[in-house]
């Protein structure tokens, strides 16, 4: 008779045989399976390198403010590339709320361009990418005490190479605004 002993059950990953559209979504509607497909398709057009991901917290939320003109794909490309390099669910702000593009971008991690939407994601310790034209959304990071990371994106129309560079956080939020009454 063998001695009783503690056993650990390991759940091995089961291959997902379901097709697109039936992959699981998270609390915000992001579809990790579709994101993987989008990243692979993106590799056909761009080769995105990410530097400075080590500045980001491992589990806590972060707000990345990327350079780039309005209506460019910089936040989306940054979110997808960063998600691939860190393994975290990275969300971007600025999806429309009109079918079919709105729901599609939601599956890729898109959030509406609303402070309360960003606030909810940061409160849940999510990583959120916004463009530089969205300063009013930064208030959400201040309210939740989330650190803000300036991020530079560079690309050229005649090259497949694109670069995302994350700088250290601008400051650690301590709960009160400096100079506030």
């Amino acid at each position: 008779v063998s001695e009783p002993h503690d056993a650990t059950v390991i759940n091995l990953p089961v291959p997902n045989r379901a097709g697109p559209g039936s992959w699981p979504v998270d609390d915000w509607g992001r579809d990790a399976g579709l994101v993987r497909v989008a990243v692979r398709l993106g590799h056909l057009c761009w080769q995105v390198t990410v530097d400075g991901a080590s500045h980001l917290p491992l589990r806590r939320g972060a707000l990345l403010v990327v350079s780039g003109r309005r209506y460019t794909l910089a936040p989306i490309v940054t979110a997808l590339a960063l998600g691939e390099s860190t393994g975290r669910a990275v969300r971007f702000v600025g999806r429309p709320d009109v079918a079919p593009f709105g729901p599609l971008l939601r599956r890729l991690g898109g959030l509406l361009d609303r402070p309360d939407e960003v606030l909810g994601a940061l409160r849940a310790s999510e990583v959120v990418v916004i463009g530089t034209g969205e300063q009013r959304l930064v208030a959400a990071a201040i309210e939740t005490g989330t650190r803000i990371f300036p991020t530079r994106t560079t690309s050229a129309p005649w090259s497949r190479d694109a670069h995302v560079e994350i700088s250290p956080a601008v400051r650690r939020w301590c709960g009160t605004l400096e100079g506030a009454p």
Partner: protein
Amino acid sequence: MAGRRVLVSGMGGDLGSRVASLLEAEPWVDELTGLDADPPRRRLHRASFHLVKPNEQERIVDLVTAFDPHVIVHLAVWEPFSRADPATARRLTDEAAVSFLGAAADCRSLEAIVVRSGTEVYGRARGAPSRPDESAALEPTCDYGRVLASLEQTADSIGRATGVPVAAIRMGTVLGPHVPSPLGRVLRMPAVPFSVLADPPFAVVEDIDVATAFVAAGKVRLAEPVNVLASGAITTLQAARRGRRLPIPLFGPEWTIATFLSGLLGAPVPDHIVELFHRGRLADNSRMPELLGFRPAASTVEVVDKLYAWPSVIHRPPRVVAA
């Protein structure tokens, strides 16, 4: 805290009788009574019950004021096409709100009111927050949402007038083996329609978790609204695939035909469920553990899996008594 009298309106429904059975086990509940137009759907040991229609206002006021409860749990809400058509559901819910909450104003010992509401109160207009928290504005865009928002408003005004804290449990769509849920009926049909252009995510909650939330809200004397939903989300297509149903992709105009056919087949689809199929329905439930001290046991995906695991109705021929 001990020795409290608790009144449950709508005790006859599945949710009401579940809440009552949980309240019976609470040490702080001394006396428990319930009122409804239907008798309770499960065996209760300590509770007393009064069979009363929502429009019998004078009788309800007499019963409620005679009991003089410390906590009122108001569950007398009819979801459209759950047990009544939308017009009847609206009328019954309004009558029950006037009768029960109006009677609450005359209860001297009253310490807390807990009302049933839903995430439909936030509305799903274009550009509305896709995952609203409790601070989001109430801008309902469906009939049921407007009824629930009006109910919350009535409860709030009575709470302000009497100085009693009011908690609104804004729950996601409730699914359970005995819950008459329009969404559950549609998802269990052999073929399930879904919006091919959007197929947005939604969250649900299991009936036992909602019942626990009501008991917790009454216990802690919650004085604010709280979203009660299971974690995670699912889309209609995913649900149909998990249940091995035939997904029917729809674009737009054919939804009218689909909902009509669904009604003919015994699963009428009210407008708040059509809205859920088109626009999704999520809400931020992050404050629930802090306010109520519990997390739902089952995730959205698990609740939907259970939905498909329930046995179907088996029709047996009547027994013939031997002469």
